[in-house]
């Protein structure tokens, strides 16, 4: 696979950054140092980085409440992400979003949604706008296997196909919809079959292999534009974390977790580093940089000021009488 060195460095550094970041989040969650729900994405690094490595910086994406990896891979500022999780005024959403809603519009993020399947219709709208205005930005919606059951996904899929809208539906099949296994809820073996009902092209790939994710995404983006059609991609991986931090994970058998570790996306990427002529020193340097960035981001966030209570009154509307807000 032909990927230039800068991008390769970017890919490895992002993989490490996401893993270190989420491990750090797990730690502070245990110590109860941050407010609110935390959903970590350990096991999803290859999907986040692989898809984003095929996108341009200003392409549109939507994410979910499990968004830290998407935001990091979409080049959102790590310090602002962390500050947001801490609820501080310099957070990426000025403290109004929190961990579940990390999203920077200026980086092409159309939102990180706490509602399952909220993203596909919204990205459909952005892709429709690109089509009407003859724009060139790509549009990608990320969602989990749980969203497959939801009407909003189906409605967006049907309209996208009917209207010949180029966009990617990226389904991250991590084996669990919240605390219920995918196969407990669904008889369809391959989720990618579901989109065929809409006559939509679909692909399936190994979500643990960042290079496979990159390649499938890159090709799908080209095909989607050439054929003026949405494409559905199912990437299979494993959710090592629970639904949220503090979840007892009683429904995830230890043997299953251990088996999944054999296909840990970071492990696979490290095995492939040799194919891309990385020396162990280079890899260790990228790891160090990633760890350093994460440490700095957390140090930054901890020292940031809290928002003023009355800051909560801003940004509800573009234009509204102030005396009617409070």
């Amino acid at each position, binding site marked *: 696979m032909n990927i230039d060195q800068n991008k390769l460095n970017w890919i490895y550094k992002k993989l490490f950054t996401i893993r270190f970041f989420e491990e750090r989040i797990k730690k502070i969650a245990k110590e109860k140092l941050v407010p609110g729900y935390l959903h970590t994405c350990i096991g999803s690094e290859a999907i986040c980085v692989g898809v984003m490595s095929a996108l341009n910086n200003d392409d*549109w994406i*939507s994410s979910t409440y499990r968004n830290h990896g998407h935001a990091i891979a979409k080049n959102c500022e790590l310090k602002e992400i962390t500050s947001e999780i801490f609820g501080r005024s310099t*957070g*990426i*959403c*000025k403290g*109004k*979003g929190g961990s579940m*809603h990390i*999203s*920077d*519009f*200026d980086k092409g*993020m*159309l*939102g990180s*949604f*706490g*509602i399952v399947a*909220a993203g*596909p*219709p*919204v*990205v*459909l*709208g*952005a*892709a*429709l*706008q*690109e089509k*009407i*205005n003859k724009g060139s930005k790509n549009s990608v919606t990320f969602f989990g296997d749980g969203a497959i059951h939801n*009407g*909003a996904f*189906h*409605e*967006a899929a*049907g*309209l996208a196909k*009917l*209207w010949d809208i180029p966009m990617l539906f990226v389904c991250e099949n991590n084996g669990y919809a919240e605390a219920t296994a995918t196969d407990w809820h669904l008889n369809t073996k391959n989720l990618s079959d579901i989109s065929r009902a809409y006559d939509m092209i679909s692909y399936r790939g190994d979500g643990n292999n960042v290079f496979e994710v990159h390649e499938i995404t890159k090709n799908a983006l080209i095909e989607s534009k050439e054929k003026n059609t949405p494409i559905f991609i199912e990437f299979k991986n494993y959710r090592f974390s629970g639904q949220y931090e503090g979840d007892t994970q009683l429904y995830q058998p230890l043997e299953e977790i251990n088996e999944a570790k054999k296909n840990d996306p970071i492990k696979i990427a490290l095995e492939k580093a040799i194919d891309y002529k990385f020396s162990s020193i280079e890899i260790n340097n990228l790891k160090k940089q990633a760890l350093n960035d994460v440490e700095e981001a957390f140090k930054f966030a901890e020292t940031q000021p809290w928002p003023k209570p009355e800051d909560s009154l*801003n*940004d*509800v*509307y*573009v*234009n*509204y*009488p102030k005396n*009617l*807000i409070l």
Partner: protein
Amino acid sequence: MPILTVKEAINQALVESFTNDKNVILMGEDIAGGKGREQYQGTQDAWGGPFGVTQGLLTKFGPERVRDTTIAEAGFFGAAVGAAMTGLRPIVELMYVDFAGVCFDQLMNQAAKMRYMFGGKQNVPMVVRTVVGAGFRAGSEHSQTLYSLYTHIPGLKVVAPYDAIDAKGLLLSSIIDNDPVIFMEHKRLYMTKCEVPENLKPIPLGKGRIRKKGKDITIVAIQRMNLFAEEAANLLADEDIECEIIDPRTYSPLDESLIYESVKKTGKVIIIDESNPKCSLASEISSLISENCFTDLKAPILKLTAPHTPVPFSPPMEDFYIPSTKKIIKGIKTILKY
């Protein structure tokens, strides 16, 4: 001055907005009505929705900007949010406000919160046009108003015009507004007429209108209730009772001061709302008046609303459901005794 129906006024506002801004698009079920994807689209006799309001738009502006959708409100409401955030000004049609249940997430959790939740960077300039109201023998699932459901949600603006001039002027404003606006059209008002000046300017949101001046009692009338308020006021005028009729026109933001000024003058107030009574616009306006005009009040505030039931089908029952001129007169006379 040309005389227009509410329906024609809305159609005109749409045509003008489409002409003024190429980013305006319209999405909805049956807004054109098509058979086949290419062969029949663009025909002059497109359906234009159940009330024919959008008739002719497809012919004028083409299928790229006038998009007939599947019966998938969550899909195209969400799409409107994404399109609005990225540069278009989508108008979506919710065929009946009663259908809100199937796409309420896209309004309540996405359209309304996008700007706030993600730190104020994005605007969501979209308009939801929807049809409300009882009196059409349309049964429980096609007759509600649900004004308060939307007014309750921070981030949304709510507009409910009574006559053709307000319908046109307020729709023009709603479309150029940078926040999500719910624009409610009453099905029993579509064919009512009034003079609408050519080149009418947009009417600002958040400004109510005094429909009739008077000194004895304030009637706050919500949308179609202005019709009955006016009838009642005319009949009472024969008995030398002068009613002041306030039509707030927009419910979020609400022109509170216009109501207070009137109540301070009259000291007596009746609020007429054809919605269900619990947590309604009527109860909200009543509570605001009691907080802000307590010492000016000379009588208890009277709310005249529908009962706490779904909208019934059968004519005698539905007519009983909707506040009537007779009930308004009776209510006003009760208050005037104080």
